[in-house]
Every structure is written in structure tokens, then in C-alpha cells.
């Protein structure tokens, strides 16, 4: 497949030259970004803050110093993992909202293994590897629960996942203030930190681990290859686009759905494991930091094309980190980053819908033979509540 990922299935129609079509697409997408910034600027003006100054501060906060830049990369890793994961479930037509809880469970299981093996004769490297693997298993199992609920219980994965997210949060809090509380009294700052040798090695004095960075990039590449180049990916897409037809063509549909959940959960769990072993060195209440939800937003923003995960996730990480200094400099709340990110997603999806209509109209105008829609970019996966059991 070429650059467009899924888009190659929909060849450029005869009506419009590919280059012209590409320019139209770029134009629409730039328009979406401009609209998102426009709306955010209006909100800033209403709040009485100078928009340009705010954007400048975000930029400086993200790229102004080496420390800031490494922080961006630290935030990039869980975003890469979570987004790569949800691309798998989106390909299967599933809305894995539960990715957030899957990150948490990954972190919980990693913490558990570290606590268990801490002080044993095993080498620290081995303990870390086992802990990361445990994180993957934890996330996958939590995802499997949503998958089983959907496949065999007919519970829509959105509701199942959302419910499990709350359970995961409650579980973390119980562990932090109960069985795993610090000597003396439990606190919101989390469990007792692990000794340094049980942390992934980091660069200099920062929290950036090249190991976790490598894992994140590897995950994106693997997911890209799996979705675009393997039979597994083709079947998954078939299930996502029409599970009844896929079943009749011989694809084991519910098994593939469950597999998608397991893979996504595994990647999300790894994200949680990385947060514990490389960033926080302990379990904290907000261990997932909303990276799961952000991953879903990124997947929607890039219209489910794996090739765009890395740059857009970096952009989101930069907005997140960059906005940290807004409260200090401009007395603005750092949640402004969420406003900007949300506006981006909304406008990109909105403009994509407009673009599809525009292209279809243009084609209808230029062809009278009624050849039908030739180039239809990937449609938003629609959740299908009926499990085919």
C-alpha cells in the first residue's frame, strides 16, 4: 500500500486527477486545523488572554529547552502505544473506550510483579522484563473482559469499556490506600517508589528512557505492518467493515474481534508498564494520565491511518507538555491543551465529512455515466452493538 494507508483501496476516480485530488485533501485538512485554532483563539479571547501569546508559550513550553523536549518525548511514548493499540480495534470496527482502564491494569500488574520480585535474587534486568510482560498481560486481560462481554454477553464495548475504566480507577485507589500503602499512611502520591535498579535506564537526569521510546516506535511500526501488509490486517478490516459478509467469506469473525481487543489491551498495558518502570517508578492514582482517551482522539484525527500516528502523537504530546507552563506565565489553566486537542479532532472529522461530500458532488458533476463513488476514504468505524456469536 502506498502512503495513504487504507485509502489505497479506494482508487482515485477517473473524474479527478490524483494530484488535484491530493491538493483538495490538503486544503481541506489545513482548513480544519485553521478552524480549530480559530475557535480556540475565540475561547482565549473570551477568557481575556492573548491567543498568540498563549500559543507561543505552548510552543516554548514544548520545545524551549532540552528538558522540555525530553518531557515531550516522555509523553510521546504512551501516546504512541495507546494510539497503535486503538488502531487495531478501530480496524475491527470496535470502539475500545476501555483503553484507559487497560493502561491502568498494565500499570497495576507491573507494580505487582515488581513488588513481588523486589529483593529476590533475580537480576534487575530480568525483573524489569517480567514486569513489562506482566503489564502487557494485565492490559490484554482487561481488554479481554470488554471483548468477552461484547462477544458473549451482547454488551456494547463502549459501555463495557467505560464501566471497566471506573473499576480500574477504583482498584488503583484501593491498592494505593489499602494493601500497597506506604509505610505509615497511604497518600495520593502513590505507592512507595521502587529502588533505582528496578527502573528502566533513562537518559541523563531526565525521565526519558530510550528503551521505552524504542518500544513505542516499534509498536507503531508493527501495527502499521500488521494492518497494511498482512492477512491478519486484511481480515480484521473485513470484519470491521462488514462482519456478516466477512463471516460468510470464511473469516472467523468473533475470534478476530477478541484478538483485536487482546492486541490493543496488550499495547495499552505496555504503556502502563512503561509509566511505572520508566516515568513514575511507582503506582500513582492518575497513572494513565488520560493517554488512552488522547490515543482515541489521535486515531480519529488521523482518520485511522497508521502512517500518521508518530507525528500527530508528537504534536499532541507537545501541546500537553507545552501547556504546563500556561498557569505560571499567563494565569491560564493548563486544560487549555484539551480544548485545543478536542477542537482539532472535531474540526478534522467535520471537515472530512465535508470533503467527502465535496468530492462526491464533484464526481457526480463530471461523470454522467454514474460510475459510483470511486474514492471513498475510510469511513468512521461504526460501533455495532450486536455481537455475532
Amino acid at each position, binding site marked *: 500500500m502506498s502512503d495513504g494507508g487504507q485509502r489505497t483501496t479506494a482508487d482515485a476516480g477517473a473524474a479527478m486527477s490524483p494530484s488535484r485530488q491530493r491538493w483538495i485533501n490538503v486544503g481541506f485538512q489545513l482548513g480544519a486545523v485553521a478552524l480549530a485554532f480559530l475557535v480556540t483563539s475565540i475561547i482565549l479571547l473570551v477568557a481575556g488572554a492573548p491567543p498568540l501569546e498563549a500559543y507561543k508559550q505552548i510552543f516554548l513550553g514544548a520545545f524551549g529547552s532540552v528538558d522540555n523536549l525530553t518531557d515531550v518525548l516522555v509523553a510521546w511514548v504512551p501516546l504512541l502505544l495507546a494510539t497503535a493499540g486503538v488502531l487495531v480495534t478501530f480496524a475491527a470496527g470496535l470502539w475500545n473506550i476501555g483503553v484507559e482502564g487497560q493502561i491502568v491494569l498494565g500499570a497495576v500488574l507491573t507494580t505487582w510483579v515488581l513488588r513481588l520480585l523486589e529483593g529476590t535474587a533475580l537480576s534487575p534486568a530480568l525483573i524489569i522484563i517480567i514486569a513489562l510482560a506482566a503489564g502487557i498481560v494485565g492490559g490484554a486481560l482487561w481488554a479481554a473482559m470488554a471483548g468477552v462481554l461484547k462477544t458473549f454477553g451482547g454488551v456494547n464495548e463502549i459501555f463495557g469499556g467505560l464501566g471497566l475504566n471506573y473499576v480500574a480507577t477504583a482498584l488503583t485507589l484501593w491498592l494505593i490506600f489499602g494493601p500497597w500503602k506506604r509505610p505509615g499512611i497511604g497518600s495520593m502520591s502513590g505507592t512507595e517508589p521502587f529502588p533505582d535498579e528496578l527502573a528502566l535506564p533513562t537518559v541523563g537526569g531526565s525521565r526519558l528512557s530510550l528503551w521505552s521510546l524504542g518500544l513505542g516506535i516499534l509498536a507503531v511500526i508493527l501495527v502499521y505492518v500488521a494492518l497494511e501488509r498482512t492477512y*491478519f490486517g486484511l481480515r480484521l478490516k*473485513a470484519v470491521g*467493515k462488514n462482519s*456478516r459478509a466477512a463471516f460468510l*467469506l*470464511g473469516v472467523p469473525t468473533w475470534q478476530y474481534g477478541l484478538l483485536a481487543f487482546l492486541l490493543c489491551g496488550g499495547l495499552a498495558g505496555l504503556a502502563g508498564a512503561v509509566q511505572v518502570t520508566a516515568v513514575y517508578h511507582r503506582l500513582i492514582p492518575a497513572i494513565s494520565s488520560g493517554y488512552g482517551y488522547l490515543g482515541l482522539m489521535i486515531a480519529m484525527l488521523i482518520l485511522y491511518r497508521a502512517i500518521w500516528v508518530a507525528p500527530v502523537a508528537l504534536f499532541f504530546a507537545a501541546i500537553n507538555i507545552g501547556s504546563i507552563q500556561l498557569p505560571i506565565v499567563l494565569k491560564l489553566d493548563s486544560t487549555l491543551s484539551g480544548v485545543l486537542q478536542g477542537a482539532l479532532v472535531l474540526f478534522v472529522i467535520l471537515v472530512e465529512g465535508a470533503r467527502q461530500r465535496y468530492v462526491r458532488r464533484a464526481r457526480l458533476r463530471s461523470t454522467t455515466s454514474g460510475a459510483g463513488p*470511486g474514492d471513498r476514504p475510510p469511513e468512521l468505524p461504526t460501533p455495532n452493538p450486536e455481537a455475532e456469536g
Partner: protein
Amino acid sequence: MEVSLVDIHKHFGPVRANDGITFSVPGGTVQGILGENGAGKSTLMKILSGFQPADGGRILLDGRQVNMDSPADAIRHGVGMLHQDPLDFPAMRVVDNLLIGAPGGLIPRRSEAASAIAEQAQAFGLSVDPRAEVGSLTVGERQQLELLRLLWLGAQVLILDEPTTGISAAQREQLFAALHRLAEQGKTVIFVSHKLEEVQELCTRVAVLRQGRLVGEAMPPFSVSGLVSMMFDREVTPGPRVTFAPGNTLMELSSLSAEHGRIRLEGLDLQVREGETIGLAGMEGSGQSLLLKVCAGLVPATHGRLHFSQEDVTGKPYRQLKKRGLAYVPAARLEEGLISGLSLSEHFLLTQQKPGLFVDRRKGHAIAEERISQFNIRGTSASPVESLSGGNQQRALLALVNPKARVLLLEHPTRGLDIESVIYLWGKLKERCGDGGAIIFTSSDLDELLRYSDRILVFFSGRVSKPLDAASATVDQLGELIGGSGV
């Protein structure tokens, strides 16, 4: 009220659902509209009831041309439609359902509506409790409610789309009596169905649609075979019959029973032998599709055994039967057969046996090119399936069938194809029979059934005729059986 339809046209892409339909219904009649699925009945009724705009043509009520842009518009002009599935609000009470469609101010007048409905129900011998929750009513009762609602809103023309599916015999009696009474009052009743005996019983005139055109009108007494031959295509196709000497038994059904939705098959015995083609005839929804699905392992048999090349496969799921050499091709192309958004070559890649890990796009392209030329598909290997025309989608569906499959179960394999393509595709299909395969197919084209089957089973609401020898059967004979006489 007299309803006149003048030159109604409606196209869906290349499909002409209504292709210049003109006819009128005088007040005080019960007009039957007959036609097979896809003949254009529902489209025409949706246009008349304001659900869909026509692409061309006029609607006249008592000689006055009217524009109906929505169902609300239509009911203001006195035209109301009773849909096949009740369009009501199950979680609400009967009286609230009534008020939703009614023009009115801020505060609904519940008691007034409740007494009006009770009064009307009594007048028509119907029994609807205004305070009941709609969700607790049976389909028949909900239909009565809908009927009363339309009358309460002042409907002069009532359109009923397949109203007798899923209601009890007693409710049917009530409904028919009420419809007769309405016609006596001078109202116009339009009754859409493909059940001939009901049309015979109820209607005072009948119009028959086929492929978007009005092909005939009839007055009582109706002749069943005459109506059937109008409903089904009778064009004669050239070419000799192809038959093969039947070999060993490939598939055997012994006193097989199954149930799906409202259709029940009971105690079916059938032996399908190598080289044989078996045609399944009958009105849509009489059990033919159910039989195919049971044979494919998509619907479990409730009783009896199913054997596939000497092996007992009763209760085995579809995927296992598929691996053993069975192929099922559904009628709904884009809903069940093909995957919108994937290209032709991706479809062929999907059906590869033991494909390995990585997708070999060049191989997919090669297979696609080969099948495209074999099956005469107008499209390229990179064409998304939804961009193909209906006929080409049908060809693609058949091209996707595993070349090694020994029993082909085909639902309407040539629906929507022109005669040349039908002959060509049957040539391809018959090659399978020559290689020792067997075909079981459904069709609503009597000539296709007679020409390409060796034996024909006729279905009538779940009952199945004895196998007919297709070489000696006639269109009239089939027509009688399909209409329900003698099965």
C-alpha cells in the same frame, strides 16, 4: 377518494425501481398491488405516502394534483400508510402514540383522544385499550392501533404494506372485516402483498408490478396462474438444457426440520446427487432461503439429520461445512456478500486458503484479473466493490466462490442480470456440475428454474412440494404450486 398515479419514475443509481407507472384507484375499492420482492411496490407506496419524492410523475387526489414532501404532508391530504413493521413508540402508551402525530397545541388533550380511539375501535370491531403500553401489545394489536391512528388523523386513503405478516388468523379476520367496512364508507384501501390468496379474498381489483413497471390489472374472479405469470418473468431464453448423469449422493437431508423467524420447515427429505441442480421455487419468504441456510450450517436444524458426502454434519457450523467443500452465496450482495470499502483483489485475497502471513498484493491482483475476465466483471482489481454496478457485484459474488466447492447453495444467483449474462453465468455454474458438483438455488424466475434445474421443489409458507421433474414441468404448473394450490 380517487387516487391517480401518473407516469411515476424513481431511480436508485442504475436501478429503475419505478419506471413510468400509471394507474388509478377509485374511491370505495380495495386495490391489491401484487409483485415479487424488488418489483417496485414498496417504492411506489412510499412515494404515494410522502416518504420519498418521485424523480418524475404526478399524484392526483380526486383529480387535483398534490405535492407530498413528507408523511405529515400526505396525511394532511388524507393519505396514510401502515408499514410492514409498526412505526410506533413501544415505550409509550397507546394514547400518547396517537397524539404524537396529531397537530395540536402545547398541552395534549389525552382524554379526548382516548375516548375517540375507543369509539373508533368499537366501530370497526377492533379492541385497543388506550391506556396500554404499546410495547406490551402484539404485532396485530399494534397494527390495529396504527390503523386507528391514521383514521383518527383523517386518512381517506389507507395503504397497507404486507399487513398480514406476523399477525394471528383471528386478527387477520378482524383486519379484513375492518378494511371491507372502510371501503364501504367510500375510503380507498391499497393492499400491498405477494400473497395471492389474500389478494383473492380481499381485493376488488388488482394491479401487478414487475421490474418497476405496471404489467397488468385484473378484476375478480382472479385466476391464480394468470396472476403468477404476470408477476414472474416469462420471457423465453434460448439455449439447450444441460444435464449430467447423476452420480453418488453428495448431500442428504433426512426428515429435517428447522425454524427461523416466522417460517418453519418440517420433515424435509431430499437427496442431492453429483451433477444435479435443484431449483427452489416459491414466493419470497416461503422457506427456500431457510433451507439453504440450514444446508449451509447457518441455521441449526431442530430435528432430523444432514449428511454431506456420507458424513453426518448435523449441527456442524458454517465454517466447518465450508472447509468440507460447501459454498453459500447470499442474495443481499452488499449486506452479506461483499465488503464495502475493500477492493475486488482484497476480496479474492480474503478467500485464499492457507495464505501465509503477509499479503501478496501482486498475487491478489493476478487472481483478481483472472476472475474478472473469467466472470466478465466490468471493473478493475482495485475497484472498491461498492463502485461496481449491481450486476457486476453479482458476478463478483459468484467469482468469489471457492473453485473447489462441491455443493453450491445459491440465493438468487442471477438476480439483476440481463439474459446474456444469465446464460453465461449458468454456463460457468454448470461446469461445476460436470465436475461432479451439485447446485441448490432459489430463484423467482420461473423460466430460469425450469431451464437450469433437474428437479424443482416448490415452497409455500414452509410446506414443500414433492420434487418436480423440471424437464416435464410447465410454467403454469409451477405457478399453481407457487400460488398455494396443491402443495
